[in-house]
């Protein structure tokens, strides 16, 4: 084994070969690797983001649920209040109506009583007149006594 120019020749060839690899072989390989790495990074990031979004959405949903519960409670309370109010109003109205009807009935009764009294009064006067006529059996000056009788019937 003796050293000669062959070794220089091989060095030249090797140098060219290495340059070729650097220019045309290495970049596609590293490019593919970099792309793969980027894809993985993006995938992981997307997964993280999705998890975060999910958490946020869950929190939002919980908050919404809470809000709507509070709102529902308020609405129910309001409805109850309103119902009570309506019942009270109805009661009030019913009472007023009842009072009114009662008053009307009373007024009517009173009127009827007055009318009956009036009629009775008239009849009493007639009866008294008839009685007196029978008792006296005499002709009576109706005109003279009418005034007296009227006074009497008014006192009844």
């Amino acid at each position, binding site marked *: 084994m003796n050293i000669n120019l062959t070794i220089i020749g*091989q060095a030249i060839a090797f140098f060219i*070969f290495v340059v070729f690899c650097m220019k045309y072989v290495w970049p596609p390989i590293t490019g*593919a690797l970099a792309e793969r790495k980027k894809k*993985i990074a993006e995938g992981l990031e997307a997964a993280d983001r999705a998890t975060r979004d999910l958490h946020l959405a869950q929190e939002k949903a919980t908050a919404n649920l809470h809000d709507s519960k509070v709102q529902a409670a308020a609405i129910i309370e309001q409805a109850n209040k309103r119902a009570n109010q309506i019942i009270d109003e109805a009661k009030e109205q019913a009472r007023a109506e009842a009072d009114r009807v009662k008053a009307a009935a009373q007024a009517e009764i009173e009127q009827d009583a007055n009318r009956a009294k009036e009629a009775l009064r008239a009849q009493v006067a007639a009866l008294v007149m008839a009685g007196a006529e029978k008792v006296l059996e005499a002709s009576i000056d109706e005109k003279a006594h009418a005034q007296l009788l009227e006074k009497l019937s008014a006192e009844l």
Partner: protein
Amino acid sequence: MGFWAINVDTMLWSVGLGIFFLWFFGKVAKSVTSGVPGNTQNFVETVIEFVDDNVKGIFHYKNPVIAPLALTIFVWIFLMNLMDLVPVDWLPYVAGQMGIHFMKVVPTTDVNATGGMAISVLALIIYYSIKQKGVGGFMKELSFQPLPKIFLPFNLFLEIVGLLAKPVSLALRLFGNMYAGEMIFILIALLPFWIQWLLSVPWAIFHILVITLQAFIFMVLTIVYLAMAHDDH
């Protein structure tokens, strides 16, 4: 040198490259993260994914040995072949300065290296054939096909030749390709030094394909042979 000689250069280079493979992949495996991979992890993952895809596409049985075996075969053979691209006289010259006057740098240009791997594959083929089908099943496979049972001796002869042809073809294909490639580099090195690059550079560039392809073929054929060993006829 008779049969009992050992090619120390082949042994040292192949074992050294094997250790380098184990060290490199082991180092990455230890520091592996489930997050965004670093550059080396990314590279190792790509290689493993590539091998795993091939194994999954070819080998449909459950066997935890096949994928690591395929990875080892692919990477190890690739590394051994890669030594072919180092200028053909450099490392032997360094060895010569240290007093070693003959050294083969590319282990796969030694038929002992490729043959050793191929014989290991043959051993695995026989092992898994017997494990899957039993001794009787394996014997039946060797003797009762492709022709009817009466032609048993003929079948046996044919099948054994077929079985032995697998490792022989594996070993000789790899050895032949690499040896021829190396031979051409050596022949080019005999040209005047100022013209060498004209032939050496295209051949080296072409060799990038050859070394990858040969490692890939050895791996794929190993997987195919082992899948066939698992197949029940």
